[in-house]
């Protein structure tokens, strides 16, 4: 099939060809073609197979509205061939047919399936015997759906950028009305965004001969400063935010005023065989001719309810298509059936009252069943629609504040320019810009007839919903079964829930519902308009498939050392370097080095810094001497443990606060909150990212420190819980003598920029002493030996310092009030029913973390929070919450772990160095 002679507004470039494949076969297209227009020229008439019956479906709307041309492009399903531009090398494949589009085995459901596939068939036909449901489910899942997702994350990768755009006015719809609205508002001085979903703004003007006017208006809009988003689909209205999806960008447009110029959607007619390829909406047929110079057929029959179909007939005739018959409903004539096996070969026309009929051979049946204003976005914004009997559709009856409509959606399609201009002037004026619009003049509309809910019902399947394969008979059946409201029927039959989102089926369904229930259309009403208005890939909403990861400045070294890297909160951390037990042992026997840069680090400064911390922590910091360190537990006003860390007083007015790695953000937020409330003379600086930190621990740590710093590191000069500022390997550092892992330890904090230098220097200096890097897992073993809690691991949102065996941290005798004081006073008077204790496993099993602790009768009364094998101790150790009465050394507890009952022995003191002599040495 060849192209028509040059059409006045055609979008194709006849000098440039583009090649792509469809189901493996090469297709030649012209630049400017869509996939569908190129395939149509190449002779393809069947574009997809329907959802349930696998019937052939062909081009219907050619405007991205209906489900008929959904294909997969380069493996991504759900692409509309009629709007997707043909690109060189693209791989296009059909959906929902096997083995091929022409020979679809599942088409058998169309011939025999009627009895088996009524509405809700998956609850009826496939429910007995019950035990076979898993099998049915598998089969149904295979049979259902409109395409297959790509298998791997890499193939699915979708790069969407978010962009936030604040504007004075957002105009949705770039037809004549929208363009005029945008220009009027922009020329009045407003900052205007115009979103149009088509590949080129202009709407219907592009196909009805006014393309030059439309193109000039687009230029005028740009000149007036309007940001025109081409191929930008407004997805919905969310409390004033309109996401506009445009290729790989999701614009989040927030405007002070909205003009919806979303047009109206041409409606199909419901008759027998109304889904056959070759049945095409009048606008669709005109689009093929005007934009792509493709003749949609040679012998056409036209069935219409208004002048729209007759105008299409004239346009088709001008393009050389023979119009063999016309049925105008205003004269009582309509179409009763489309005949043909693969494609329309004849149309049966007749009087609505059944008094006459005739059969006309044709290869194209053009239908125009009136139009439905595209009110969804307006309704989502809070507008209300009402049935308009004169035009047979639901029209806008009430507008929300800040929202205007223009053009066809407002019923003003005959004066799109005037209507758009008035809306644009009005919103600008509301924003204090420009002149008030002149009073509106009523727009004259041509006469339209309202089609019957269904015609030719006795001649074959009459589809009300082509997306979900719901026939007029199915709606009748669903009403008989009691689903007699439109919302119920929608959920039962899934009408309006398919890819067209009700564009083609809402009105037919409401008409059928009214007929079946005897209600008026107004009483039947419409289903609720919900976003998204247009199908959108989830990837476009999800943004880029990137998980932000934090890495310490030393991270590359861990990689080089062969570390197993794992997630720890937002951080990528070295879990171990291959042998966690050996790494833990090295800390006991010589020395170990761990990267603890992930710790949260806050600088708290000011005359009231000490008093501020006194009010935040249950213990006292104003009394801490400069150069000394104290452990602190943050509690909420309910007395629950929120975080923990060490605090070093640097000088009279400065405190260096560390937090847990995962709690850094929350602690900063918490500190800042109370600071805002109390308004104390304190400043807060988060230095988490700016400073790296490592912990050097073990019996040889002191000697290694001696090689790296001029500081006197003897126990007398640099005692446990001292904090000193000195150069380490030449880098200005803060050295904290603390010991999370139970051996003599130095936690060195220094600028991140020197992360790898300091790390290297310590490993070099420590080599002769046997220093080894150790990861997170050996650190967990080591700290467990000391029964140091991990907040969030051993504690939860119910844990108090008393329950967590740290009553010493709470200084209730502090004069001043502190966060959590009252709750902790209460807790001190009412001993906790559960207690956090250590335990050993005589039988050597390692219980699962989270396993239940049982009482004598087998009831769960607590849980294991941590458990590890310790090579140093030669036994399995752990921590668990147990009933307070069992919190005694030697008490036996029972742990239920994966159906086994394990026995454990309570140990309330640290397993290693219980008195802390090693640590302090």
């Amino acid at each position, binding site marked *: 099939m060849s192209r028509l002679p040059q059409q006045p507004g055609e979008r194709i470039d006849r000098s440039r060809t583009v090649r792509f494949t469809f189901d493996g076969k090469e297709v030649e297209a012209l630049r400017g073609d869509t996939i569908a227009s190129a395939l149509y020229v190449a002779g393809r008439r069947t574009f997809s197979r329907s959802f349930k019956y696998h019937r052939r479906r062909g081009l219907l709307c050619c405007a991205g509205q209906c489900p008929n041309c959904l294909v997969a492009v380069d493996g991504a399903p759900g692409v509309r061939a009629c709007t997707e531009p043909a690109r060189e090398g693209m791989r296009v494949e059909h959906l929902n047919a096997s083995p091929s589009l022409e020979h679809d085995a599942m088409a058998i459901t169309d011939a025999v399936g009627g009895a088996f596939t009524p509405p809700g068939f998956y609850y009826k036909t496939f429910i007995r015997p019950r035990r076979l449901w898993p099998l049915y489910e598998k089969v149904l899942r295979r049979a259902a759906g409109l395409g297959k997702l790509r298998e791997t994350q890499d193939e699915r990768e979708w790069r969407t950028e978010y962009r936030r755009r604040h504007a004075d006015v957002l105009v949705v719809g770039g037809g004549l009305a929208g363009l005029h609205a945008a220009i009027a508002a922009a020329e009045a001085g407003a900052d205007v965004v115009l979103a149009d979903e088509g590949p080129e703004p202009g709407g219907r003007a592009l196909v009805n001969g006014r393309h030059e006017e439309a193109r000039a208006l687009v230029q005028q809009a740009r000149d007036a400063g309007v940001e025109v988003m081409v191929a930008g689909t407004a997805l919905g209205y969310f409390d004033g935010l309109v996401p506009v999806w445009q290729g790989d960008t999701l614009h*989040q447009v927030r405007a002070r005023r909205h003009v919806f110029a979303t047009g109206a959607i041409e409606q199909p007619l419901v008759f027998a065989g109304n889904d056959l390829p070759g049945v095409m909406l009048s606008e669709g047929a005109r689009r093929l001719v005007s934009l792509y110079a493709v003749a949609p057929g040679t012998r056409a029959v036209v069935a219409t309810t208004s002048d729209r179909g007759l105008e299409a007939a004239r346009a088709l005739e001008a393009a050389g298509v023979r119009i063999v018959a016309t049925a105008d409903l205003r004269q009582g004539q309509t179409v009763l059936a489309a005949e043909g096996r693969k494609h329309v070969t004849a149309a049966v026309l007749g009087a609505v009252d059944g008094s006459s009929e005739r059969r006309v051979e044709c290869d194209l049946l053009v239908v125009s069943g009136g139009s439905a204003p595209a009110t969804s976005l307006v309704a989502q914004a809070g507008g209300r629609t009402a049935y308009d009997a004169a035009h047979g559709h639901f029209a806008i009856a009430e507008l929300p504040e800040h929202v205007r409509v223009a053009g066809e959606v407002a019923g003003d399609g005959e004066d799109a320019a005037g209507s758009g201009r008035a809306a644009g002037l009005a919103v600008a004026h509301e924003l204090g810009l420009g002149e008030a619009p002149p009073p509106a003049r009523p727009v004259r509309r041509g006469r339209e007839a309202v089609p019957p809910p269904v015609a030719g019902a006795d001649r074959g399947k009459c589809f009300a919903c082509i997306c979900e394969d719901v026939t007029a008979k199915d709606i009748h059946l669903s009403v008989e079964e009691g689903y007699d409201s439109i919302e119920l029927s929608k959920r039962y039959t899934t009408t309006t829930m398919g890819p067209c989102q009700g564009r083609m089926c809402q009105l037919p369904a409401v008409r059928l519902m009214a007929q079946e229930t005897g209600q008026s259309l107004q009483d039947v009403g419409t289903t609720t308009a919900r976003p998204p208005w247009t199908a959108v890939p989830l990837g476009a909403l999800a943004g880029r498939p990137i998980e932000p990861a934090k890495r310490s400045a030393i991270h590359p070294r861990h990689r080089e050392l062969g570390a197993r890297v794992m997630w720890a909160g937002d951080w990528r951390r070295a879990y171990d370097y291959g042998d966690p037990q050996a790494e833990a042992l090295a800390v006991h026997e010589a020395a170990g080095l761990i990267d603890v840069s992930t710790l949260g680090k806050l600088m708290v400064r000011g005359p009231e810094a000490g008093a501020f911390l006194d009010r935040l922590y249950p213990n006292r910091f104003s009394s801490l001497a400069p150069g000394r360190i104290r452990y602190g537990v943050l509690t909420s006003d309910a007395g629950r443990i929120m975080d923990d860390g060490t605090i070093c007083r640097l000088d009279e007015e400065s405190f260096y606060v560390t937090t847990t790695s995962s709690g850094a953000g929350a602690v900063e*937020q918490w500190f*800042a909150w109370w600071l*805002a409330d109390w308004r104390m003379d304190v400043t807060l600086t988060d230095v988490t990212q700016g400073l790296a930190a490592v912990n050097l621990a073990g019996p040889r740590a002191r000697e290694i420190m001696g090689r790296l710093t001029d500081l006197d590191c003897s126990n007398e000069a640099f005692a446990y819980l001292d904090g000193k500022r000195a150069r380490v390997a030449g880098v200005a550092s803060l050295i904290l003598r603390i010991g999370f892992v139970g051996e003599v330890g130095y936690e060195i904090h220094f600028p991140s920029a020197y992360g790898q230098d300091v790390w290297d220097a310590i490993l070099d200096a420590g080599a002769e002493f046997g220093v080894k890097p150790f990861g997170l897992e050996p650190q967990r073993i080591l700290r467990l030996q000391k029964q140091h809690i991990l907040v969030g691991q051993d504690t939860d949102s119910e844990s108090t310092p008393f329950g967590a065996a740290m009553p010493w941290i709470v200084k209730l005798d502090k004069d001043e009030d502190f966060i959590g004081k009252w709750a902790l006073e209460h807790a001190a008077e009412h001993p906790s029913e559960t207690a956090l204790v250590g335990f050993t496993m005589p039988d050597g099993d390692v219980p699962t973390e989270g396993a239940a602790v049982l009482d004598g009768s087998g009831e769960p009364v607590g849980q294991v929070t941590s458990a590890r094998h310790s090579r140093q101790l030669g036994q399995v150790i752990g921590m668990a919450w147990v009933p307070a009465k069992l919190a005694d050394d030697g008490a036996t507890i029972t742990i239920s772990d994966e159906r086994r009952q394990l026995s454990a022995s309570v140990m309330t003191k640290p397993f290693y160095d219980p008195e802390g002599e090693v640590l302090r040495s």
Partner: protein
Amino acid sequence: MSFVLTCPHCGTREVTDFACGGEVSRRPRERPTLRELGDYNYFRRNVAGVQREWWYHRSGCREWFVAERDTRTNEVLWTAIPEEAPSS
């Protein structure tokens, strides 16, 4: 839920930039009874209407400010740093 707030330091931003600290409540000044403490910790007025709230500009200056918002419409009446908030 979608609306904008004007951070007193940074300007107008989408709500997703912020963390809501909930309604402004008065922390007891003297030792409360257990019931008063429970009310303070666990009960909120949860008004359908205008309420004064704490907001934190998490993705911005990381400072707290106060706002009055109509919980029915998400209309934000004003925002201010705590020192400059009108007395309630």
